[in-house]
C-alpha cells in the first residue's frame, strides 16, 4: 500500500500542462509522439546532450520535486533507457569499425541515466535504482516503492516510469510484430482485427509515501505474473480481488491496457468480465510501450482527482457518479501481466 501525493505526466496528449484532454492528438504513422514542455528547468549545457527519455524523465521528476524537495529515494522503471543514444553509439561502432569514438552517446545510453541525472541535478545521495524488466519494469518499481514505504513509513519517494520511441527500437519492434502494418487512426485502433498495436512513449512520476493525509489516491495493491495462459491470468485476478477488496466493495472502473492487438484481446476480455464494471481504455491516447502502465496509474489518479472520465476513453458502461475504486490491468506482449488496485 502506498499513498500518492503528487503526479506528473508527459505523453502524446496535453497531460503535462493541461489535464483536460480538450484536444486529442492523432496517431501519425502508427506512432504517438510525446508533447514535450516548451520551457523546462534543465540547464542548457546538460540539456543538449540528453536524449528524449532522459528529458521526459527529468521534466516530469522536476515538476514533482518543485513541490516536495525532501525525497529519500528515486525509483524508476524503464525497459530501454536512452535507446536513441544507445543505437547512435552502436552505429558509430560499426560505421567507424571500432575507431576512435566520442563517449557522449555511450554515457547517455546507460539505462540508469534517468534516475542518475535526477540525483545529480538535485544533489540527492539517497536510494537510486533503475528497474528494466521489459513490460513489468514500472510494476517492479512500484513493488520497490511499496517495500521502501513499509521499511520507512515517513519518507517520501519519487516513483516513475519512462520509455521513448527511437527510430531504431521502432524498427526492431515492428520487425518483431509488435506494431500494426496497416495505417491506424484513433477510431480504427480497436476495430481492426489484426495483430500488433501502435508505438508510444511517455513518462509519469509520482510522489509517494505512507501518509494518508491529503493524499490524491491510494495504490492499495499490485500483482504481477508471467504467463501466456489466460486461465492463469483469470485465477490470479480472482485471487487478487478477493484478497484486496473488502466484502461488498465494487469496482467503479476497469482501466485496461487494451491496445488493438487481436492476439491479446482474450486477456482483456476475461479481466473485463471479472471486473464487471464500466470499462475504460487509454492506449489510443498514449500508444503502446513497456512502461505505459505508469501512465495508466496517472490516468487513474486523474479520474479520482477530477471525478471525471473523458468520453473518448469509455469502452462500455456508464461513467459512475462517484469514482472511488479502479482496477488497472495491463499486459505486455501477452506474457507479462499486472493488476493495480487504486483508491480514492
Amino acid at each position, binding site marked *: 500500500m502506498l499513498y500518492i501525493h503528487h503526479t506528473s505526466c508527459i505523453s502524446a496528449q496535453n497531460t503535462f500542462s493541461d489535464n483536460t484532454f480538450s484536444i486529442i492528438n492523432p496517431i501519425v504513422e502508427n506512432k504517438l509522439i510525446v508533447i514535450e514542455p516548451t520551457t523546462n528547468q534543465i540547464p542548457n549545457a546538460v540539456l543538449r546532450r540528453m536524449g528524449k527519455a532522459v528529458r521526459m524523465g527529468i521534466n516530469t521528476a522536476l515538476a514533482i520535486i518543485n513541490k516536495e524537495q525532501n525525497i529519500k529515494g528515486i525509483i524508476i522503471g524503464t525497459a530501454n533507457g536512452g535507446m536513441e543514444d544507445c543505437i547512435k553509439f552502436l552505429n558509430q*561502432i560499426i560505421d567507424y569499425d571500432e575507431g576512435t569514438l566520442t563517449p557522449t552517446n555511450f554515457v547517455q545510453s546507460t*539505462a540508469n541515466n534517468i534516475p542518475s541525472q535526477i540525483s545529480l541535478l538535485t544533489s540527492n545521495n539517497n536510494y*537510486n535504482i533503475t528497474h528494466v524488466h521489459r513490460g513489468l519494469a514500472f510494476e517492479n518499481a512500484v513493488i520497490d516503492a511499496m517495500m521502501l514505504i513499509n521499511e520507512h513509513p515517513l519518507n517520501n519517494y519519487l516513483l516513475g516510469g519512462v520509455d521513448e520511441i527511437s527510430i531504431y527500437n521502432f524498427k526492431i519492434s515492428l520487425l518483431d510484430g509488435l506494431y500494426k502494418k496497416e495505417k491506424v487512426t484513433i477510431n480504427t485502433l480497436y476495430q481492426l482485427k489484426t495483430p500488433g498495436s501502435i508505438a508510444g512513449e511517455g513518462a509519469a512520476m509520482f510522489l509517494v509515501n505512507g501518509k494518508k493525509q491529503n493524499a490524491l489516491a491510494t495504490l492499495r495493491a499490485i500483482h504481477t505474473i508471467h504467463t501466456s495462459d489466460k486461465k492463469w491470468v483469470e485465477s490470479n485476478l480472482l485471487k487478487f480481488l478477493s484478497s484486496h477488496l473488502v466484502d461488498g466493495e465494487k469496482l467503479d472502473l476497469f482501466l485496461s491496457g487494451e491496445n488493438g492487438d487481436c492476439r491479446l484481446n482474450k486477456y482483456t476480455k476475461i479481466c473485463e468480465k471479472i471486473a464487471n464494471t464500466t470499462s475504460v481504455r487509454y492506449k489510443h491516447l498514449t500508444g503502446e510501450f513497456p512502461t505505459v502502465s505508469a501512465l495508466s496509474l496517472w490516468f487513474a489518479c486523474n479520474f479520482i482527482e477530477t471525478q471525471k472520465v473523458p468520453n473518448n476513453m469509455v469502452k462500455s458502461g456508464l461513467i459512475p457518479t462517484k469514482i472511488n475504486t479502479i482496477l488497472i490491468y495491463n499486459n505486455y506482449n501477452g506474457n507479462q501481466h499486472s493488476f493495480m488496485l487504486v483508491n480514492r
Partner: protein
Amino acid sequence: MKRVYVTGIGILTPLGKNLNENRVALQLGKCGITNLELFKTRYANKMPFGEVKIDNKTLQQELKANEPSVTRTTLLALYAFNQAINDAKLSQQDLSNSETALIGATTIGGMCLTDELYKDANKTSKGSPYLSSYDFGSINMYLQQRYQIGGIVNTINTACSSSANAIMYGARLIKNGLAKRVIVGGTDALAKFSINGFNSLMILSPNICQPFDSNRSGLNLGEGAAFLVLEDEHLSEKKNKYAELTGYCNTNDAFHPSSLSENGEGPYLAMQGALKLAGISSTKIDFINTHGTGTENNDEVESRAMLRLFGEVPSFSSTKSNIGHTLGASGAIEAVYSILNLVHQEIYPSLGFATPIESTKLIPTLSYIKKDVSHVLSNSFGFGGNCTSLLFSKV
C-alpha cells in the same frame, strides 16, 4: 525482521566454471585476464580481457539451450543459474512456487550482439532471430519461461552495481514478506558495445589492471555470471547455509555521470548504511572486497571513502585483477567471492599491486592468508553514481 541466508551458489568466470574452480584459482593467485581467443573485436590484440573460454556452441549443447534467439549473456546466466538451483536442491515445484522470485541484473543485456542489433535497428535485414533478445529483460524472461518461476521476476540495471542491487532487492522481498526464496544474480558477456564505450572514455588499460597501485592505468573488461539462492530462516533451516546477508545499502554519489566525487560520498554512505542496517560497528569488519576497478578515479576515491569510514582500514583486496570488470555480473561474482572468504576463513591475494597511491597509502592483502573472518563488506559502484555495499556474515 526476517533473516536472509545464502543456500545455493552458481558461478562462471574466467577463473573457473564452478565454485570450487574459482576458489582454487583465487587461492593460487591466478589471473584469468588474457588475450582474446573467442570474441572478435579490433581491440583483440591491443588489450587483455577476462574471457570465459567456452564458446557459445558448447554452452548451447551443454545447457540444451538451442533456441535460435538465445544470446551469450543468457547462456552465461543459465550456466550459473543451473548450478545455483542444483546446489540449493530446488525442485521444479520449488521454482514454480508463487513465493519463489527471480531477480537478475545485466548492464549490456542482449546488446552483446552489437553487429546483429545494428542490422536489425537499421533495417538492413529482414529481421534476425534476436529481435526480442536485445533488451535487458530478455535474460530473465528466458530463465522464467524455462523454469516457470512462479513469483516476482525482475531485472535491474544500475550499471556496474546492477547485481549488487539485485541481491539487495531479493533480500528485501524476503524481509517484506513478498517472497520466501529469491534467486538473485547477474550476467554480462563481452560486447563491442561495452569495449568501445569504455575505450571512448579512455579507461581501458593496455595491460592487466593494477587495482590500488599508484601506476594503475585503467580497467580490463571481463565476462561471467553468478547466481545465489537466498532463503528465509524457515526454508533454509535444514540446509547448508553459506552465509547470512546482514546488511546492504544503495546510495547515489550525485557528482558526475562517469566518475566519483573526490571525497567518495556515495561509496562512504553505502558502506556506512550497510553497517548500520546490520547493527555492526566498523571495527567488526574483517575484510572488504572492494570495487577496485584499477581506474585512476575509482581506486583513489574508494580508498578515501574507506579511510573516512574506518580510520584504520581492514584487510581488503580487489578481484578485478583476477577476472576483469564483469559489469552487471560483478556484484554477484564478488558476493560469491566474499562468501568464500567467510566459508573457508581465508583471504586471497590481490593481484597487480606494487606501489601504494601517494595520497592514501593503502596496501591490499598481497598473499593468501588464513584468518578469522566473520563479516565481509562487498562494494559495487557504477556510472551514474550508483553505489551499493553488501555485508555478508558468517553463520
